[in-house]
């Protein structure tokens, strides 16, 4: 077997263009696919036009002046802003494709916000959003990002308003100073102080004074009002964020988006290299008419299968180890887990190699073997990457069953577990089982190969 393996390596060494195209193609396609799967742009570029005059950027909230522009910072947390001066400029950026969307804050927004806070009925403040709709996916991504950032800004403003409302409530209950427009600073007695005064006045009245009953009613009202308004403060606080979120990962990947992209790229490259190489090199034995000569006692069919699986697995393992090493360095993956990576890469390469030999045995010629390997690999990868919830549950179950018959999905699961933690033994056992099954199929296919 080792002489055949050396012979194949020698043939590959003499076909640098073919090997270069195979490796280059596999890496480029897989990296691009991985990047495409894991993103929209992480921070979409958005043109931002703030038309509010500088002198109008303040909003009076209670007795305080709040700078509304500080809420713009919320908008920039999730987008890459291109600052422009006019609405037309913002729209032009979107039209030209320089920006995926545009956010325009009209000049009257602080006036309307002030009116809303003062309950003057001036109408709700509105910001304008423009999208580039050339790609529905991209549009949806930008729209979601802007909606979410606006929701953050709205929440920040409402939290500020609620804080001020709570302060007012506190003054109404306990008394204190409040600054009012025009009037200036005003002392507020407060319900509790009012109750104290009423109780004192009531105590000074004769026992049979007719005012005592009325004053008792007022005192009880002041106490009840103070107690209930006190209780309403935590309710107000909860309004600013009525629902808390507690996140749990029940099943699936704990990986970051970039780690997921790296995993997809590595397994994709493994698949292309192992399938194409195994299928092509087995078919070459027949195309060169050497198969008949080999199997008449020089090499058993089983040894030939083992040699081709080893060759393809070796090439895929070396390539993906280098690839994952580089990607791991760039993405800051935990290299302490690298022994697990190597186990996954070795088993995954063997499984894909065996599958490639089975394809080569079924197709017999190099060109048709390569075409078949290529044609098979695309749906295998695509099916494995269909997320749950993307299709109807019955169809998803079918997809899971079909993709479990090929090494891509267990390869992704195993590499994900090796990189980010999680159940590793099951996908590894799955890969080992697939390697054995495809090797057996490859051996069967050689019965009528000559």
């Amino acid at each position, binding site marked *: 077997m080792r*002489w*055949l393996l050396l*012979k194949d390596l*020698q*043939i590959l060494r*003499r*076909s640098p263009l073919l090997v270069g195209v195979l490796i280059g193609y596999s890496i480029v396609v897989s990296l691009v696919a991985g990047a495409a799967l894991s993103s929209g742009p992480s921070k979409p570029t958005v043109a931002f036009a703030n038309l509010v005059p500088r002198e109008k950027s303040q909003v009076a909230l209670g007795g305080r002046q709040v700078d509304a522009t500080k809420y713009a910072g919320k908008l920039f947390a999730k987008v890459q802003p291109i600052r422009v001066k006019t609405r037309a400029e913002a729209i032009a950026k979107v039209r030209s494709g320089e920006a995926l969307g545009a956010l325009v804050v009209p000049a009257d927004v602080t006036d309307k916000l002030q009116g809303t806070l003062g309950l003057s009925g001036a109408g709700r403040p509105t910001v304008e959003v423009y999208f580039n709709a050339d790609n529905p996916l991209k549009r949806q991504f930008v729209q979601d990002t802007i909606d979410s950032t606006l929701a953050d800004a709205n929440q920040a403003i409402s939290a500020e308003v609620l804080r001020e409302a709570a302060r007012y409530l506190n003054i109404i209950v306990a008394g204190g100073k409040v600054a009012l427009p025009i009037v200036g600073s005003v002392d507020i007695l407060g319900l509790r102080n009012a109750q104290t005064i009423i109780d004192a006045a009531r105590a000074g009245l004769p026992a049979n004074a007719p005012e005592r009953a009325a004053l008792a009613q007022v005192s009880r009202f002041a106490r009840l009002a103070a107690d209930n308004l006190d209780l309403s403060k935590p309710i107000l606080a909860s309004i600013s964020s009525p629902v808390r979120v507690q996140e749990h990962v029940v099943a699936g990947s704990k990986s970051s988006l970039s780690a997921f992209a790296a995993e997809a790229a590595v397994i994709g490259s493994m698949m292309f290299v192992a399938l194409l190489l195994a299928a092509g090199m087995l078919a070459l034995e027949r195309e*060169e*008419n*050497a198969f*008949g*000569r*080999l*199997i*008449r*006692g*020089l*090499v058993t069919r089983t040894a030939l299968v083992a040699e081709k699986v080893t060759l393809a697995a070796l090439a895929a393992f070396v390539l993906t180890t280098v690839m994952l090493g580089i990607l791991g360095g760039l993405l800051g993956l935990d290299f302490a887990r690298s022994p697990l990576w190597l186990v996954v890469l070795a088993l995954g390469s063997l499984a894909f190699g065996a599958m490639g030999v089975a394809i080569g045995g079924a197709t017999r010629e190099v060109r048709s073997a390569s075409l078949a390997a290529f044609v098979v690999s695309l749906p295998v990868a695509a099916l494995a990457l269909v997320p749950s919830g993307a299709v109807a549950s019955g169809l998803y179950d079918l997809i899971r069953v079909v993709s479990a018959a090929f090494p891509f999905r267990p390869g992704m699961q195993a590499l994900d577990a090796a990189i980010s933690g999680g159940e590793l033994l099951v996908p590894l056992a799955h890969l080992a089982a697939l390697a054995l099954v495809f090797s057996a199929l490859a051996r069967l296919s050689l019965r009528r190969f*000559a």
Partner: protein
Amino acid sequence: MTSVASAPVALTADGVSKAYGDRRALQGVSFSAHRGERIAIIGPNGAGKTTLLQILAGSLKPSGGSVSLEGGEIGWVPQQPALYSKLSVAENLRLFARLERCPDVEATVERMLDQTGLRDRARDETGSLSGGNRQRVNVAIGLLAEPSVLLLDEPTSSLDPRQRERLWVFVSGLAEAGTAVVYATHNVAEAERFADRVLVLADGELLFSGSPRELERTVGGDAEAPDFESAFVRFLHDRGH
């Protein structure tokens, strides 16, 4: 003929049959090849010549019957050169010498380079060789294990007349040295010139085993068939083929 017929038997096929589903490619073919004997298997297309050689070579399992080799090895030269075109002549010979487990690989390669006259092309990739030279390497690989029986399937089909002549001189030299040579050919004239015995196969049946002269006599000699090719065609015609 007489001398080789009395030589020890090198290979025996006994009732060899091969069926592909309902189609019977070979039906109970039996014959023996003696050391130093040259046997040509002739017959129309689809007669089962290649199937018989593949079974004798061990690259195809018979459905029935058996093949026995009386010591030594079988060398196999398929119709299409079975070589790796990206490897050089010497590398091909070295690879197959290793797979044949030749005791001294380098000495064997050197010997075959001399025998085939390809020493000056030893470093050339076989993909760059002419059809004739590729066939010489193909034959050389069949001879690596110094076989007692050499099987050749249409060995001259891709060669020009000069190359054909050189090949037969070479093969005849092997036979004189004691190698039993069994070959299939469509070229009836080659069978007449370079065979001690011909086996006529048609539809998987062995119809005749004997010398070319005996075949001519079977159909009535010069009166019925002026040459061997005519005798062969007449023979097949008389038996419904």
